[in-house]
C-alpha cells in the first residue's frame, strides 16, 4: 500500500503565535473522573485563534457507513478522537487505533506521548483499540502510514494532558504556572521546591466537562525522546513468552477449531461422507460443513488435525482449476499494454521480467476467536482493517454493526496478510453454525496453499538512450489482480480524490499513487494492467514497488553498462533529489563501492524513494559454486548475500532503533523474493506447504555482515518506513547477482525454474500429520 504526493500536512505549517512561529493545535479535555485528553485523528486541527471552537468534521466517503450510525456518532463531540488517560498510579494509557504486527508502532506511539507529556516511557501503556466504526477509514494499518498519520494527533493529546497537569499543580501549590516545570512525571516549583507527581494530580486535573483546548507542541530542537534509539515497549513480554497473540487469549468455551479445505484453490464442498464418525473421534465436539470446507472443533488442535485428516469429502472445482505458472504467465503476456513504437535507429534496452506468486504468510497463521450468539458477536484477531471486518461480519451474521465487538489482538507478523480478515469471517461463520465459541487456526499448509498470495506479474521495460543520456523510460507492469477488498484508508481515498485519475480503476490509481522513477530519464511512462481474478491475493510488504523498482534498477545497471558508465556514478548523476543522492553516497562510501572482489562475487547498488522517505542498499553477493553448492538438509542454499549496507532517510526517525529493525526485516524480505521465496502453481494449487518448501530467508541465507545507517533528520516530520527497504534490497541483490554472473536476471525468485527443492505434500488429506520423532531430533 502506498501513499504519496500528500499535500502539505497541517503540522508543517507554522502559525504565528506570540510572534514566534510555533505550532498551535486544538485538542480536547474530556469529562472523566481521571484526567482524560483527546485529539482528532486524521485531519489534525490547527487552532485558528485561541478562542475558536470547532467540532472536527467526519471525513471521507460515507456510503460504506450507515447514515444513522454516522448521525449517532457525530452527535458525540469526541467520537472520532484518540484519547489518553492519566491514572493515579502515574501511568498514561492510550489505545492505538492501529494493528501492531511487529513494526514497532506501539513503541513509537509511546515515545510521542513521552515526549509531549514529559513522562518516562515505561509509564506509558499502549494497547490496541477495538474496532471503532466512527473512525471511518481511519483505522486501517497499511501503506507505512501509521507514524505519518498519528504523529501530530498523539502529540497534541499528550500536550493537552501536560497543560492540564501543570494547571492543576498551580492550583494545588498556589503558585504561578511559569514557576512550575514538568519532568519525568513530576511537577516541581522553582520557587518553593515543592513537587507533585502526575499520579497525585491525575484526578485533580480531571475535567467535569468536555471542552476544547489549544496547545503548542514542542519544537523539534527541544525533543528529548523523539529521535532517540529506544527498545520496544513489549520486548520483555516477547522474550518471556508472556506476549499474548490471538491464539493465546483465553475465551471461555472457545475450543480449538480447524477447517478441512479443498485440494485446489477455493474449491467447494460437494458432500461429506463421515461427519458423524468424525464427531465421535477422541476430543472432537463438533464437525460442520461451511462455505470454505468442513470445520471441526475439539479439545486440542492436535485432535482437530487428526479429525481434518479423517474427513472424507467430495470437492467441487475451485476458481483456478488447471491453472499453472505457465498458463498464468501466458495470460499476463496477453494483457500487457503496448510499449511506444521504437525508431529502429534509436539505441534501447529492452527487457521483460517475471515475478512469480509469493506468499505473504506470517509465522502466526490466519487465526481468530469468535463467539457468535443469537443477538451479538465478539471477535478477537489481529486485524489491520478492523472496521471493514466488523461491518462485513455483521452483514454476514445478520446483526447490526454495533452488536459485533471486534478486539484487535497483537499480531504475529502481517506483511499484508492481516489487511484481510479471512480467519475472523470464517470463525464467525463456524461459531454461528456450531452455536459455540471457537478458536480457529489455519494449518501452516493451508496458510501457504489457500492463503493470500502476492500476485504473479510481469514488467516490460524499454529505455532509449543517446549521447550518455536516457531519453525515454517506459514500463508496462502487468499483474494478476490484487485484491483491495479490505477497505481503503484515508491514505489512498484522500489522495485519489485530489488527482486527475477519475477514469482509472482502483488498482491503477494505487499504482499511479505509489510508483515513481527517481531518475531524470526524459519522457517516463509507467502503466499497470491487471487481469485474472481467480486467486486469493493481497499486498506483500508493499504492493508493486519491489517488483517495479527491481526491474527498473536492473535496467539502470544495463543502461550504465551499455554507456560505459559506473552503476553508482550513473545513478548519482541521474537522481532527481538530493536526499536520494545522500543515501546513495552513504552506502557507496561505507561499503567501499567498486572495491576489488573475486570472480563470481560482486556488489550491487540501488536506491528507492517512497512515502516521503529514501533508502539506498548496497549488497554483496557470492555466486561461486562452493557457496551455491552448500548442502543443508531440507534447505535452499544458493547464492549468498554476504554483506548489506543500508542508509535510510525517513525525514525524522521517531525511533532510529525501531527504524533499523524495519530496514533489517525489509532487507531479509528483499533477499528472499529475489533469490528463493516463491510459490509454484500446478493444476490449480500451490505446491508449497511448509517453511522447508517456501524458502523465506533462513539463517544460512542471512548476510553475516549488515550495517544500517539512519541519516540525520532532514525534515521535521516522519515518513513511512515499514515497507521501504524491501524494494531497495530486492533491487540491490538482483543487481549484485547480475554483476556477479554477467547476466541480468529476469525471473524471480531466481531459483523458480530450478528443479523443485522439495517433495510436495499431498493435497488430500489437505494437511499433513505432525511428526512423532521429535525426541530423536533433540539437540
Amino acid at each position: 500500500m502506498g501513499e504519496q504526493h500528500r499535500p502539505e500536512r497541517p503540522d508543517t505549517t507554522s502559525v504565528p503565535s506570540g510572534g514566534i512561529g510555533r505550532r498551535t493545535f486544538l485538542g480536547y479535555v474530556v469529562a472523566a473522573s481521571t484526567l482524560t485528553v483527546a485529539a482528532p485523528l486524521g485531519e489534525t486541527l490547527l487552532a485558528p485563534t485561541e478562542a475558536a471552537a470547532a467540532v472536527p468534521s467526519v471525513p471521507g466517503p460515507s456510503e460504506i457507513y450507515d447514515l444513522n450510525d454516522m448521525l449517532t456518532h457525530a452527535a458525540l463531540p469526541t467520537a472520532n478522537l484518540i484519547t489518553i488517560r492519566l491514572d493515579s498510579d502515574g501511568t498514561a494509557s492510550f489505545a492505538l487505533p492501529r494493528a501492531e504486527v511487529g513494526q514497532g508502532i506501539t513503541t513509537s506511539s509511546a515515545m510521542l506521548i513521552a515526549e509531549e507529556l514529559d513522562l518516562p516511557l515505561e509509564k506509558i501503556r499502549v494497547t490496541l483499540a477495538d474496532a471503532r466504526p466512527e473512525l471511518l477509514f481511519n483505522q486501517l494499518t497499511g501503506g507505512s502510514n501509521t507514524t505519518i498519520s498519528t504523529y501530530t494527533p498523539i502529540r497534541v493529546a499528550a500536550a493537552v494532558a501536560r497543560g492540564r497537569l501543570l494547571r492543576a499543580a498551580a492550583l494545588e501549590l498556589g503558585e504561578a504556572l511559569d514557576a512550575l516545570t514538568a519532568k519525568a512525571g513530576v511537577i516541581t516549583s522553582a520557587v518553593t521546591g515543592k513537587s507533585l507527581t502526575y499520579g497525585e494530580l491525575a484526578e485533580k486535573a480531571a475535567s467535569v466537562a468536555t471542552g476544547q483546548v489549544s496547545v503548542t507542541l514542542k519544537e523539534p530542537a527541544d525533543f528529548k525522546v523523539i529521535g532517540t534509539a529506544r527498545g520496544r515497549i513489549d520486548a520483555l513480554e516477547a522474550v518471556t513468552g508472556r506476549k499474548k497473540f490471538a491464539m493465546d487469549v483465553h475465551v471461555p468455551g472457545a475450543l480449538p477449531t480447524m477447517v478441512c479445505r479443498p485440494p485446489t484453490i477455493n474449491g467447494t464442498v460437494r458432500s461429506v461422507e463421515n461427519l458423524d464418525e468424525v464427531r465421535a473421534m477422541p476430543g472432537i465436539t463438533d464437525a460442520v460443513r461451511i462455505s470454505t470446507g468442513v470445520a471441526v472443533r475439539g479439545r486440542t488442535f492436535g485432535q482437530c488435525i487428526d479429525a481434518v485428516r479423517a474427513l472424507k469429502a467430495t470437492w467441487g472445482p475451485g476458481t483456478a482449476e488447471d491453472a499453472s505458472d505457465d498458463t498464468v504467465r501466458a495470460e499476463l503476456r496477453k494483457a500487457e499494454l503496448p510499449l511506444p513504437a521504437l525508431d529502429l535507429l534509436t539505441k534501447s534496452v529492452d527487457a521483460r521480467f517475471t515475478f512469480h506468486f509469493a506468499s505473504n504468510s506470517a509465522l502466526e497463521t490466519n487465526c481468530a476467536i469468535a463467539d457468535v450468539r443469537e443477538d451479538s458477536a465478539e471477535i478477537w484477531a489481529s486485524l489491520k482493517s478492523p472496521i471493514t471486518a466488523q461491518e462485513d461480519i455483521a452483514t454476514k451474521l445478520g446483526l447490526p454493526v454495533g452488536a459485533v465487538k471486534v478486539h484487535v489482538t497483537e499480531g504475529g507478523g502481517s506483511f499484508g496478510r492481516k489487511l484481510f480478515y479471512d480467519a475472523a469471517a470464517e470463525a464467525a461463520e463456524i461459531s454461528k453454525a456450531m452455536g459455540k465459541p471457537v478458536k480457529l487456526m489455519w494449518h501452516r499448509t493451508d496458510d501457504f496453499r489457500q492463503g493470500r498470495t502476492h500476485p504473479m506479474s510481469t514488467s516490460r521495460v524499454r529505455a532509449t538512450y543517446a549521447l550518455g543520456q536516457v531519453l525515454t523510460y517506459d514500463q508496462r507492469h502487468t499483474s494478476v489482480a490484487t485484491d483491495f477488498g479490505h477497505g481503503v484508508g484515508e491514505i489512498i481515498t484522500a489522495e485519489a480524490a485530489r488527482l486527475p485519475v477519475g477514469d482509472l480503476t482502483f488498482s491503477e490509481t494505487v499504482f499511479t499513487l505509489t510508483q515513481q522513477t527517481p531518475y531524470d530519464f526524459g519522457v517516463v511512462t509507467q502503466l499497470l494492467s491487471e487481469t485474472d481474478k481467480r486467486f486469493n491475493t493481497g499486498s506483500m510488504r508493499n504492493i508493486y514497488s519491489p517488483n517495479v523498482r527491481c526491474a527498473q534498477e536492473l535496467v539502470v545497471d544495463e543502461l550504465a553498462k551499455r554507456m560505459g558508465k559506473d552503476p553508482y556514478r550513473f545513478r548519482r548523476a541521474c537522481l532527481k533529489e538530493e536526499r536520494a543522492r545522500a543515501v546513495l553516497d552513504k552506502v557507496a562510501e561505507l561499503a567501499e563501492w567498486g572495491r576489488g572482489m573475486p570472480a563470481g562475487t560482486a556488489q550491487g547498488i540501488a536506491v528507492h524513494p517512497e512515502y516521503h522517505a529514501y533508502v539506498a542498499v548496497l549488497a554483496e553477493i557470492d555466486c561461486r559454486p562452493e557457496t551455491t553448492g552448500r548442502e543443508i538438509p531440507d534447505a535452499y542454499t544458493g547464492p549468498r548475500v554476504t554483506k548489506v549496507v543500508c542508509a535510510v532517510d525517513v525525514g525524522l526517525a521517531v525511533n532510529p532503533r525501531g527504524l533499523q529493525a524495519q530496514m533489517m526485516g525489509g532487507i531479509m524480505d528483499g533477499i528472499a523474493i529475489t533469490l528463493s521465496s516463491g510459490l509454484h502453481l500446478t493444476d490449480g494449487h500451490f505446491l508449497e506447504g511448509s517453511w522447508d518448501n517456501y524458502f523465506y530467508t533462513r539463517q544460512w541465507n542471512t548476510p553475516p555482515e549488515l550495517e544500517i545507517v539512519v541519516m540525520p533528520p532532514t525534515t521535521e516530520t516522519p515518513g513511512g518506513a515499514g515497507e521501504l527497504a524491501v524494494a531497495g534490497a530486492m533491487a540491490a541483490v538482483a543487481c549484485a547477482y547480475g554483476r556477479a554472473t554477467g547476466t541480468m536476471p529476469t525471473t524471480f525468485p531466481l531459483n523458480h525454474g530450478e528443479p523443485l527443492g522439495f517433495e510436495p505434500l499431498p493435497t488430500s488429506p489437505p494437511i499433513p500429520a505432525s511428526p512423532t520423532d521429535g525426541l530423536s531430533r533433540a539437540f
Partner: protein
Amino acid sequence: MPEHTFILNGESVTVDIEDDVRLLWVLRDVLGVTGPKYGCGLGVCQACTSHINGKAFNPCSVPVKDLRPTDEVTTIEGLPATVGRELHPMQEAWLEYDVAQCGYCQPGQIMTAVAKVRQAREEGRDITEADLDEIRNVCRCGTYHRIREAIVAGARKY
C-alpha cells in the same frame, strides 16, 4: 483416558489425554502454557522449541506418551528458573539487542540459542558463524541479524 506424567518447568504434572496427542497441544490447549508457539506442526519452523532434559526439541513432534515421569520439560516460561534468575542471560541479551519485532518466534529462538551455546560448550569451544548458520528457526520479520548478535553476546554473559 490415559494419564501422562512429566515434569514441566520444575513441577510434576499429570494430564488425562490420548496417547498420540503431541506435547505442544498438551502444553497449550490443556495446560494453558502458551510460550511455545504453533508455526507449522511439522517440526520445521521451530517456533515451539522448548527443552527436554536440557536439550532443544519441538513439542509439536512428540506424542505425549513418549514422555516419562522423570522427563524435565522446560518452556520459555521456565527458562529463567534453570539459572535461578528473573531472566536468563540469553533473554537479557535479547533485550539488549532489541531483537524481537512481532515476537511470535522469539521464545523458540531463545530456547534454540541456549541449546546451541550449550552444544558448543560441550565441544569445548565458543559459538561460531557456522553454528549460527545451522539454526533452523524461522523469523518471518527477518530479525536474523540481531539474533546472531544477541546469541554471541548472550553466550558471554554466563
